[in-house]
Each structure stands twice: as structure tokens, then as C-alpha cells.
């Protein structure tokens, strides 16, 4: 299942999650503001400290990069 690292007040995280819900894509939403270990995991995987970060089967997407996410999920944008 796709993983999303996010914070609760991040507007782009919310837009991303809304988009995925509309497309019927299931995801595991990890709140890095509450979970320090998850924050470290996100930073290690993405090499940076900005949210959102998506992990699609090991492929990392930083930010709400719609085109890249659609391509990796093999869906129409």
C-alpha cells in the first residue's frame, strides 16, 4: 500500500490525500508531526525535510507532483 508522510496543517498534503481519495487509491497516512521515528524515516528515504512525501512501492515522490504520482500509480491524472 502507498505510504504518505504528512503533517496535519500542510495544505499540499491535504490536496494530495483528497486527490487520491477521489481516484479510489488506498494509502497509509503517516503523521510525522506526532511520530519522530516516522519523521526520520521520511528524511532518510527522501533526503530532505519537506512534506508531503509519497512512497509508492519504494519509489519516492517529494511534494504533490501529480504527473509523477499518476505515472507511478498507473492511473489517469
Amino acid at each position, binding site marked *: 500500500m502507498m505510504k504518505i508522510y504528512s503533517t496535519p496543517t500542510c495544505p499540499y498534503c491535504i*490536496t494530495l490525500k483528497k486527490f487520491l481519495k477521489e481516484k479510489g487509491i488506498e494509502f497509509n497516512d503517516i503523521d510525522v508531526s506526532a511520530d519522530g521515528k516516522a519523521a526520520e524515516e521520511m528524511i532518510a528515504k527522501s533526503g530532505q525535510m519537506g512534506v508531503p512525501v509519497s512512497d509508492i512501492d519504494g519509489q519516492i515522490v517529494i511534494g504533490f507532483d501529480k504527473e509523477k504520482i499518476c505515472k507511478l500509480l498507473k492511473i489517469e491524472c
Partner: protein
Amino acid sequence: MNYELIIIGGGPAGMSAAIYAARKKIRTLLLSTNLGGQMLESYQVDNYLGAPKTPGLELVNKFIGHLKNFEKTASAGAFDLEIKEGVAVKNIKQAGPVFQIHTTNDIFEGKAVIIATGKTERKLEIPGAKEFEGKGISYCATCDAPLFRDKIVAVIGGGDAGQDTAWQLTSYATKIYLLNRYQDLKGDDKDLQERLKKEAKIEILSETEPIKILGDKFVSGLVYKNFRSKEEIQVAINGIFVEIGSTPASLFLDQMLRCNNKEEIITDHNTGVTSVPGIFAAGDVTDSAEKQIIIAAGEGAKATLAAYNYLKNK
């Protein structure tokens, strides 16, 4: 696809313009990269009528909810408004009596246009600024502040946004340096300024500017200069939040409209009229003296009402 009115920009100016257009039964298309615009990153809005101490995102959702009532699909065709999100406009061309709006994948035609594209944040341009973007440098505290829990951070910018950011960070960081190029904090929230001055975690560094950002894989230090003493001082930090103002999002117009020396669209503030008949402008992208959500919303309404009269006479 042909429309009577095309609105470019989905912040408060664009959304207000779209509601007015729908209610005037104008066949309208609203194009936006991200509905809400700059407001999305506002921590808290307390000066919009009817919305006391409201998180920016929450206020945006209220605006969007209201706006979408007027969508063609939601109103069973009672209103003729189409909204396309995630769309970036590349340029505008005039083709006889219509304007062609070129996006990445499409061309839309409209008899009148309202530009409400707002502003884009100014980026830091000192050594390390590009290298460490995302690696300790953030331009969005509402997004990234929680990642700096128990860390030391610096906020560059002593205006409203910088003060807002510093305040947000007090929930997470252990220490916050607030670099202000002026002697006093600017902006209109005097209450917040008092709170910042009293907050033990915050050290306001007046008359300073950042010189260099240091680090290895991530930010670990900042060198700043004090204008008065001429000293250069280095501090150890883990994060930098930048709020140094913004520039009008008018570059895509490619000089089609007259702009002032700040690249703001010169606009008649009674009507939103610009230097090209049929093109109107509203909100932060214009030369409006003040850039506020409530002012942008008002200008959006004015622009649509003027566009309506323009279209009636075509």
C-alpha cells in the same frame, strides 16, 4: 472551448469573481493551479469578516464550498461556471474579438478575461539557499514546522508572514532566531508583535540579514550580518524558514499588460480595467496599495461586474 469570461487564478480574488460571474449567468471558466492560493499557507486569519481566528486552510475550504455551489455540475445547470484545478496558464494571446488562454495541454477562448494570479514567494539568494532548499530550508511553516520539533531554527523576514511563522514555530522548536532587516517589526498585528517580544524562545535580531547558509547534508548553521555593528555572526541551527515577501505572478503575461516597476498590473481600482480592453485584473497581482484577502475578494467582485458591462456592450 469557448467562454464569455475566463478567470485566471483561484485565490480569494478569483473565487469571488467566479461567484459573481456565475450569479450574473455569465458562461465562465475558472482556471487555478491550487484553489485558495497564498491563503493555503496562512496559519491563522483573524481579519476577514465573519471568520475570527480561522486557520487559512479552513477559510479556504469555506470559500471553496461556497464557490462549488455555483458549479454547472452542482447546480443542475442553473449557473454556467466550470472550474478546472491543477491547471497552469502559460500565456494569453488576443485573436480578433477573443482571448486565447494557453495552458500546458489546452487552449481556451474567452471574450473577456480576469487576471487574479496573486503573488509568488520570493526565494532567498545567498550561498547555500538553493543547495539546502528542502534540506533544512522551508518556505512553508504550516507544512514543515512540525519537522523541527526540539530543534533550533531561524526565521528570515520580520513582516507579518515572518512573525506568523515564528509564532507557529514556538509549538515545536526550542529556539527561534527572527532576523529582521529593520529596527522594528513591521506589519499590522501589534498584539502578535508583543507576544513575540515576550516569548522566551524567540530572539529578535533587528537590522540583520542572512549572508550564508552552512551545512553538510542538511542545514547546520547560518551566518548573518548586523548592519549597525557590521559584525558577521555565526549561529548553529537546524532549520531556516523564509518569509521575505513575494512578487506578482504576472510574468506569464509577457508584457501584454502595462505593469508598474514592481511588475504589478496597473489597474483601475474602480473597475479592474487594465491597459487592454476586455482584460481585467484583481487582487495581489495588481498595483493595489494593500494586499489583503478581504481586499482581493472585493476586487474580484468589482472586476466581474465591470466585465459583465463590457460583455453586454460587445
